[in-house]
């Protein structure tokens, strides 16, 4: 049986790992290689590196660390942030990343997803979606995609509805969706199960949950109450509040299939 994946996300800025609350006030928490190695040793299933400044600054960032990470660790990892062209993606994949994740550039031009899938294969194209719950005209919740979230000053609401954007991304050839629920990000009250379940049911590719993990039970709820394929978190792992081996043991005793 395919296991549920526990994914550690390392937000990278200027070659260092940082973490902010609701995308603001980033503080330095460590060296990329050291943290990557630590997570691989602890049994994390996958790593995601988000270069959080890249998309909104529109600049090419130094990604020499991709190659160093690829040489060092023996688990899969994905690189996100600032990938705007086939050449950007090729460089990162040739450096040894297993997947690339696109967000704002895909919103600007959804055909970019198809182009990436055609050249590199669906399996290495992840589409990241930053989504916020808002109150619709009739008072019921609506989910809106946000763009340029790497920089609080530049973040804007796109015109897109989260569910339909997820479906569009799949049709264009995305291999996986990482859904970051912005309302929950950094506040540690649990994943947004309602929103995640809606997106899960709307597409057939793997969906990874992001935003809100603060306790062991949040992961158990995610996997037992939704069909979500993986749970991504950052600060609870970086701080040591939830050690990966303990989390996996906890999930295993609750009959959730994990790799131990």
């Amino acid at each position, binding site marked *: *049986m*395919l*296991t549920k*994946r526990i994914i550690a996300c390392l937000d990278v800025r200027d070659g260092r790992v940082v973490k902010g609350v609701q995308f603001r006030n980033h503080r330095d928490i460590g060296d990329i290689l050291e943290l990557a190695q630590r997570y*691989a040793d602890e*049994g994390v*299933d*996958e790593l995601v590196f988000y270069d959080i400044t890249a998309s909104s600054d529109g600049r090419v960032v130094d990604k020499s660390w991709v*190659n160093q990470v*690829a*040489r060092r660790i*023996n*688990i*899969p990892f994905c690189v996100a942030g600032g990938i705007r062209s086939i050449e950007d993606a*090729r460089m990162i*994949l*040739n*450096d*040894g*990343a*297993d997947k690339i994740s696109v967000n704002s550039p895909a919103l600007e031009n959804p055909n970019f997803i198809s182009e990436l899938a055609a*050249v*590199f*294969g*669906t*399996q*290495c194209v992840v589409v990241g979606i930053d989504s916020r719950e808002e109150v619709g005209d009739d008072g019921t919740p609506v989910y809106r995609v946000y763009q340029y979230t790497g920089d609080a000053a530049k973040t804007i609401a796109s015109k897109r509805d989260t569910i339909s954007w997820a479906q569009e991304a799949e049709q264009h050839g995305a*291999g*996986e969706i990482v859904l970051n629920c912005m309302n929950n990000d950094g506040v540690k009250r649990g994943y947004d199960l309602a929103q995640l379940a809606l997106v899960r049911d709307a597409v*057939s*590719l*793997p*969906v990874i949950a992001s935003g809100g993990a603060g306790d062991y039970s949040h992961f158990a709820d995610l996997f037992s109450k939704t*069909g979500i*394929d*993986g749970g991504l978190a950052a600060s609870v792992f970086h701080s040591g509040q939830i050690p990966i081996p303990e989390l996996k043991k906890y999930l295993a005793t609750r009959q959730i299939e994990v*790799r131990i």
Partner: protein
Amino acid sequence: MIAIIDSGGANIASVKFALERCGETAQLTADHAEIQSADRVILPGVGMAATAMRQLHQHGLVDCIRGLSQPVLGVCLGMQLLFEHSSEGDTEMLGVLAGNCRHFIATPGRSVPHMGWNRIRAIDSGERHPLLADVAEGAHVYFVHSYFAELSGDTIASCDYGESFTAIAGNGNFMGCQFHPERSGPVGEQILRNFLAL
């Protein structure tokens, strides 16, 4: 020397790095003489079967690979290319392993691609294949694929994703892993070491 066949696809550096972690050096190459004289050959690959086969044809590598007698390991799409046929673009492949590849159908509870860690189990055929030496039964390895090789007489280990499919295949010197040993933690490293010890 280990030759990693480079016919123009992306994302093949990680296999080279994994071999380096095992203490071996490997050469990315499309050169026939270099491939033919290598001690071992790895055929990596991600992307689409039709594209990959076209690239092998363009480099004149199809007959070169078919004629190899040293240990050859296909990885992921590289494993699938060793089989006879893929429904992906109705592609004729190398045909050094018996069987065909087809697409997973997504169902509720079965996302496609099959992406993540899943268990492999040896096919009971009396003797354990050397690629599986010191690999625990039901060990987890990392998969990323939408097409799979059906079980065949050349299946060495299977994996279950709603249906059983070929996780490791082998016939003589030609072997392959559907999963990524270079990204499968200590288990994947063991399988690579087993290949290097053949």
